């Protein structure tokens, strides 16, 4: 009696281990997924917050962000411009008026200029001569304090390198290409080509350079970006439409760089999330592999165990089987009697195994993962699919394991048993 129950209990125990390892592995993987979801959600949320802050900063910054555009004749080679330091192509001066009257609202000032590298014959020097007439205010904007002091006709503004080496001061008279100018202003040292630049009024420059009615650049100053990065591009497009014979380049401002920096931060945050996701996926596949090897191994071991128990059991009950045959039990009936026991063993073990597995998986997750705060309870992890799986797998495992030994015992000749003793 006791022996029989011990065998049965051991059988249930084997099933519990088998089912427990199966559900345990499944629970661990499930918890892993939940944890992954949690981590990624947190990371994504964090990224989103970061991005929101960045966007806000960007918006605030670009609200006041001013950028400068240089409008050049279309045929101007930009490489040439950078190599020589001044534009070499020309466009009509009338373009400035057209632009100013076009109603393009975001650009506050237009500064036409005519520039050329020339020899200053009187002083025997090469200089950049710039003719400018001060800015042309956008008619559709409030006239404001002028950005660049205009150069009055008959005067000259000198860069540091020129006035310093020539010993010129404000108010001195100086000759340029046969014409006399009064020094209007001497610039501080700037460390750029400005130091060797002389500024005169545009009309005089046109006259001196024999380029009446022509300019070769318009500087659009203080284009005000309304906080949308795309606007920069829009402005360029707009200008190109008003003046088809021109090209527009950005000059010495950081609007584009900032937008790029922001995009980069966003990209980095995204790739961090992606990295984490990859890490978790790799971890999962490692665990999956582990489970895929270990679980079947445990199941097979348990099946063998149950098989051995069954073998023991039927051997001990050989006489009983013989008597049952003598009484008139058919082999199938005896088989059924035995296997139904394994079925019950499987069902009971399966039921108990689920909870063992849930607990085991949960415990493993707690050991293997950090920060398992708010981990799902065993109750939450339980689901009918799992129950169904266990209630199918476990009895199958038990019945199949018990099948062979039982079959073997039943096929033995009952006469041998009954004749003995």
């Amino acid at each position, binding site marked *: 009696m006791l022996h029989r129950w011990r065998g049965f209990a051991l059988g249930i125990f084997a099933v519990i281990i088998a089912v427990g390892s199966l559900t345990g592995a499944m629970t661990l993987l499930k918890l892993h997924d939940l944890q992954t979801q949690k981590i990624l959600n947190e990371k994504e949320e964090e990224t989103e917050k970061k991005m929101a802050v960045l966007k806000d900063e960007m918006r605030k910054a670009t609200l006041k962000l001013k950028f400068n555009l240089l409008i050049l004749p279309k045929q101007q080679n930009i490489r040439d411009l950078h190599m020589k330091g001044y534009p070499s192509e020309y466009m009509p001066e009338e373009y400035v008026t057209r632009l100013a009257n076009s109603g393009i609202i975001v650009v506050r000032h237009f500064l036409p200029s005519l520039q050329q590298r020339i020899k200053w014959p009187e002083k025997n020097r090469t200089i950049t001569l710039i003719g400018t007439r001060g800015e042309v205010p956008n008619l559709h904007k409030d006239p404001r304090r002028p950005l660049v002091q205009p150069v009055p006709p008959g005067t000259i503004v000198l860069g540091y390198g020129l006035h310093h080496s020539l010993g010129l001061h404000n108010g001195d008279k100086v000759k340029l290409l046969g014409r006399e100018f009064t020094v209007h202003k001497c610039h501080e040292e700037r460390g750029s080509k400005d130091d060797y630049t002389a500024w005169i009024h545009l009309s005089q420059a046109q006259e001196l350079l024999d380029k009446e009615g022509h300019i070769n650049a318009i500087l659009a100053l203080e284009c005000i970006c309304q906080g949308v990065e795309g606007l920069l591009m829009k402005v360029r497009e707009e200008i190109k439409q008003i003046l088809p014979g021109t090209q527009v380049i950005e000059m010495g401002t950081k609007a584009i760089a900032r937008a790029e920096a922001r995009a980069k931060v966003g990209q980095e945050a995204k790739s961090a999330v992606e990295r984490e996701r990859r890490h978790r996926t790799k971890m999962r596949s490692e665990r999956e592999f582990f489970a895929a090897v270990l679980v079947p191994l445990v199941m097979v071991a348990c099946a063998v165990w149950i098989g051995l128990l069954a073998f023991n059991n039927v051997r001990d009950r050989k*006489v*009983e089987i013989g*008597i049952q045959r003598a*009484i*008139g039990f058919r082999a*199938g009936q005896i088989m059924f009697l035995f296997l139904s026991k394994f079925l019950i063993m499987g069902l009971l073990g399966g039921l108990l195994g689920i909870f063992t597995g849930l607990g085991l998986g949960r415990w493993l997750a707690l050991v293997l993962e950090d920060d398992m705060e708010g981990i799902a309870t065993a109750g939450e992890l339980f689901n009918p699919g799992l129950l169904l799986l266990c209630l199918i797998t476990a009895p199958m495992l038990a019945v199949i394991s018990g099948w062979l030994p039982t079959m073997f015992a039943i096929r033995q000749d009952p*006469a041998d048993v*009954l004749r003995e003793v």
Partner: protein
Amino acid sequence: MVEFKNITKIYDGPEGKVTALDKVSLSVQPGEFLAVCGPSGCGKTTLLLTAGGLLRPSKGQLNLDGSDPYGVSPEMRSKIRARMIGFVFQQFHLIPYLTVRQNILAPSLALPTKKAGQRAQELISSFGLDDRAGHVPAQISTGQKQRTALARALLNKPKIILADEPTGNLDEGNANTVLSYLSQYVAEGGCVLLVTHDVRTAAHATRTLEMSRGQLVE
């Protein structure tokens, strides 16, 4: 009821062939209590298992209530046993974890019959096992064990009882009780084939045959 026609049973033992039954011919009819007597190893158990459809003879033919049980499928053979035959063994062969009542009812699991419970209760009462019906075999006396075994053999109202040394483990009182129950069953139209080495047991039979080295001797 049971008829042996020239039945020979040869075992393939580890030390060569053993002829346990040698051209045995006999028959038992309803209302007959046949005792086969013989010394140990003469083939008595072999005879009984052959008669019960548990041991296929090497030669010859068995006729059990008009048909040969060895000519049908194992399932059919089991059914024939359940319906027609009751076994009683010297070692009782009760199922140890079942109670007296459950043991007696065991054949009704093999062959579901109507009113099996009522029939079991009748047998329990008439065999004086009322106060032991809920006990398991380990808790009852040898006499009670054999009475339980006999009750089990009788549950499905078999046409023949095959008894192998049923009194071998019993004292004289209990032996007589069991034998008188068998006589009663025969008187009610049953038929008994009993094998024993004990001549006193054979005294209860209506007919006795001697057996020696697998052969029947008148």
